[in-house]
């Protein structure tokens, strides 16, 4: 992982440590080697311990109890977890997140890759200009404003999306009124917000590939598409994995967009796990139940992310073995 930080010039190996006479010098050096860096990185660990680690433990403690934020928290053991396995709405939300992932991630990865390749190619001038335009929506990712704007744009009657389609002679689409179209609309909103960001990551990866590799293949007579598929994409694999992992976490964490764009509907088609956790906490005040829900949700994400990682890394090892 990257290069190792350089060592200060006067570091002395433990074996050659001088004896007692220079003890204080050693202590000062040891403090410098250990004390300062630990002090510098400590804010993260202190804040993490207080505001993440403790809540994680507290969340687990809560998940074994029934509590409505006022009054005592009642021990119920694994009852919340058992009830969760029968909670159709919760599993529906997990399924929705999975469907959204399948709708959104392949499209996003493909587009980001293609756009990055196009921007990186010799055909395009003013790379910065296009980059800026495509990246612009990032500043509205996850915003209330974006969700409402899309809601208006996709409105069956007043929205411009259907107006635009009618100009092309296509009949109006029930963007937000039909279960599948609502999912696609949600995916579209997320794609719009994050495509630029993912494109930039891919672009960075592309620019890190030495051009000689492509040149050599071209000299050998390979066409641009073959070069792209057999050389560029495999080399980009770590970047693609990174982007996909971020997207897994992203699609499974959606809250603002489904809440405001479709309010989890129609017919709970766009209800996401975080929406469910929110509703159970702040609408129904079932804090213990929602804590248990968040743990199951976390477990599922970890499984998916790890599966994705192992599916890919095995291929990586294969690639290394071949080269």
């Amino acid at each position, binding site marked *: 992982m990257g290069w190792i930080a350089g060592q200060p010039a006067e570091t002395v190996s433990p074996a050659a440590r001088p004896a007692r006479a220079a003890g204080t010098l050693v202590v000062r050096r040891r403090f410098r080697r250990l004390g300062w860096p630990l002090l510098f990185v400590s804010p*993260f660990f202190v804040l993490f311990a207080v505001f*993440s680690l403790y809540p994680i433990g507290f969340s687990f403690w809560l998940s074994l109890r029934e509590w409505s934020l006022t009054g005592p928290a009642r021990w119920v053991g694994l009852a919340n977890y058992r009830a969760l396995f029968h909670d159709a709405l919760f599993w529906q939300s997990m399924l929705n997140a999975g469907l959204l992932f399948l709708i959104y991630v392949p499209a996003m990865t493909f587009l980001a890759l293609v756009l990055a390749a196009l921007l990186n190619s010799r055909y395009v001038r003013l790379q910065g200009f296009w980059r800026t335009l495509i990246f612009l929506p990032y500043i509205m990712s996850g915003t209330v404003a974006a969700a409402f704007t899309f809601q208006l*744009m996709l409105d069956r009657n007043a929205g411009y999306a259907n107006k635009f389609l009618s100009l092309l002679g296509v009949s109006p689409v029930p963007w937000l009124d039909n279960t599948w179209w609502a999912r696609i609309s949600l995916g579209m909103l997320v794609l719009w917000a994050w495509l630029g*960001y993912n494109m930039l990551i891919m672009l960075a990866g592309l620019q890190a590939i030495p051009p000689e590799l492509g040149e050599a293949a071209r000299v050998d007579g390979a066409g641009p598409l073959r070069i792209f598929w057999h050389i560029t994409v495999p080399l980009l694999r770590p970047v693609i994995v990174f982007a996909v992992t971020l997207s897994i976490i992203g699609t499974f964490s959606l809250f603002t967009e489904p809440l*405001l764009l479709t309010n989890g509907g129609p017919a709970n088609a766009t209800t996401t796990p975080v929406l469910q956790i929110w509703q159970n906490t702040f609408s129904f005040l079932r*804090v213990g139940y929602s804590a248990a829900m968040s743990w199951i949700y976390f477990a599922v994400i970890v499984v998916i992310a790890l599966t994705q990682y192992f599916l890919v890394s095995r291929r990586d090892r294969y690639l290394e073995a071949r080269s």
Partner: protein
Amino acid sequence: MNVAARLHSDHLVKLAVYLVLAAVSAFMVFPFVWMLVSSLKPFTEIFAGTHFLPQHWTLHNFSSFFHQADAVRAIWNSFYIATSTTALSLFLCALGGYGFAKFRFVGRNFLFGFVIATLAVPFAVIVVPLFVMMRNTFHWVDTPWPLIVPWAANAFGIFFMRQYMLSIPDEILDAARVDGASEPRIFLRIVLPVCKPALVSLGIIVFIASWNNFLWPLVVLPSPHNWTLPLVLRSLQGPPGRTPYDVLMAGSVVSTLPLVIGFLVFQRRLVSGIMAGGVKG
């Protein structure tokens, strides 16, 4: 293939590429344009949905927005919370990134790995207990502290700063140490100034995230006079039974405009920052 034919297909490819880029860019920019255009239309026109441009231009929606909600206050709230978050976050992430980048100490790689691993914990898992802590332990509900403090030193920022700082030549630091400078002095006087580009990039990312934050402020800022812009947008009312798109679009323009301006000013830094963060070491 002869030269003429190749040039011809070259032109075709170039045209196709530009078409694709233009189409995608149009899709990206259109919602902004739509938001702006709608904000200048009266409510009836928005619902009629017949014309793209306003037939009767009006600024009434904006005055409505400022009249209906305590918008000026919300703008101030959003601003000072985002600024404070960014300032504190930059300082602590630079500190952490420096510690991991430029020092060798026992357990360093393990601890850094741990930092990265914490990125995997979704907010949904800790939102409830964190909220309970804010309410019962710290009594920070209805204050800006829950928004500023918990993620002041966050994994992404530390990773980002470390990535940049790895490229600082050690000789400069060692020379300063030999000169007798203390570690804090080295950090403040040498490291931070050198990292200005990365600080600007990270600062923009953090500022945008804080400005746009919705879920957590919704939970910890119940009183309207403490609301940030996203919360105000959510609370807007309009004609009975209908989403108040007119006021909403005006409010959306108001809350997005500062970011658009900042983006256009700082976009090169922001882009280079994200691209640098994207290249895994």
